């Protein structure tokens, strides 16, 4: 399987090069993806927690409009 590519643009000369990542770059990139996934997971859990809290408020009689006014 071909490694993901990296595009290098020399801003001073305008020269562009696109090539597969080397081993070191791929390692960093994979870690970036893991970090991004962790971040997305955390955001998802945060959103779920928020939804759960909103559900509880709805159960108490608040409307969706109330929640929008309250939580923005």
């Amino acid at each position: 399987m071909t490694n993901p590519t990296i595009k290098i643009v020399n801003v001073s000369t305008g020269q562009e090069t696109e090539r597969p990542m080397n081993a070191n770059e791929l390692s960093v990139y994979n870690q970036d993806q893991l970090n991004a996934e962790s971040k997305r997971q955390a955001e998802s859990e945060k959103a779920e927690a928020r939804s759960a809290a909103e559900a509880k408020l709805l159960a108490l009689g608040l409307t969706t409009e109330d929640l929008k006014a309250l939580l923005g």
Partner: protein
Amino acid sequence: MAYKTFANGFPLPASDLNNFLMNQSVIVFADSAARGTAIPSPVQGMLTYLEDTSSYESWNGSAFVGISNPGDITAVTAGTGLTGGGTEGDVTLSVDTAQFITSDTVTTSQDLIVADGASSVTRLGVGADDQVLSVVAGAVAWADAGGGSMTLLSTTTLTGSIINLTSIPQTYKDLRLIIRNYKHLTPASNRAVSMRFNGDSTTKYYSTTNNTFVNAEFSSTSFTIAPNHLTSISQGLVSILIPDYANTTTVKFADSIGIQNNNENEYGSTNWNYSRSAGFYEEADAITEVNLISESLDFDGGTALLYGVN
């Protein structure tokens, strides 16, 4: 008075002599008094010459009036900006070109006229595109704008997984990066764009989306600069400012503002989300390289425009 043509053999009565000869000749008098005495009942058109005033006068039916009409102009004097003039005969006035700016001062379209002395002018040819009228060494001149300009350094189509903008000139005050129409290839869910500087993937980064004072923990290897964006929409736009990027004495940061489509709306609907965030880099090195990382597998189009700002 009438006019009569005499023929040979015609009788010449006194009335004809008076009407057709005496009354129609120029009668010379010493003065008007003598004329009044001699001609108590003049006829219209009678012409006299008065020696005391050297003037010709004609009877108009009620009075003798002058006929020479010499006018009352006795001299034509050249005023400011003029030359010539005279007191008799044909008189010519000319414009003194030394007193005025003439059309031959300019020679080329868009020329300007500027003073090069207390009372002399010269042409100033048009400058180059985008130049402004300035003062150089005390003289008016076209010159490059000294501030407020943006220079497009690079235009890059977003393909691949990482974009490295390298060898950034260090001659500007700030960098401005515009990311427009960006999309990710897969998966078909929301993905963000991260940034780091100088290819440095160590834990020197911190990002925030709020404006409160916080204890920055530089524990990340990059920071998010363009938040989640749907893969199916390509109308996102992000503007990123990296101020004072070339200094070597302060930590650096990137300030981002943008709009993108994110279907992870908390109310379950797809909508456009405004984003405002900042990423911080715990390093005093000058920024010579900007790295854009797709948090998806690949970029799927879009454009990154890097400007140098003065």
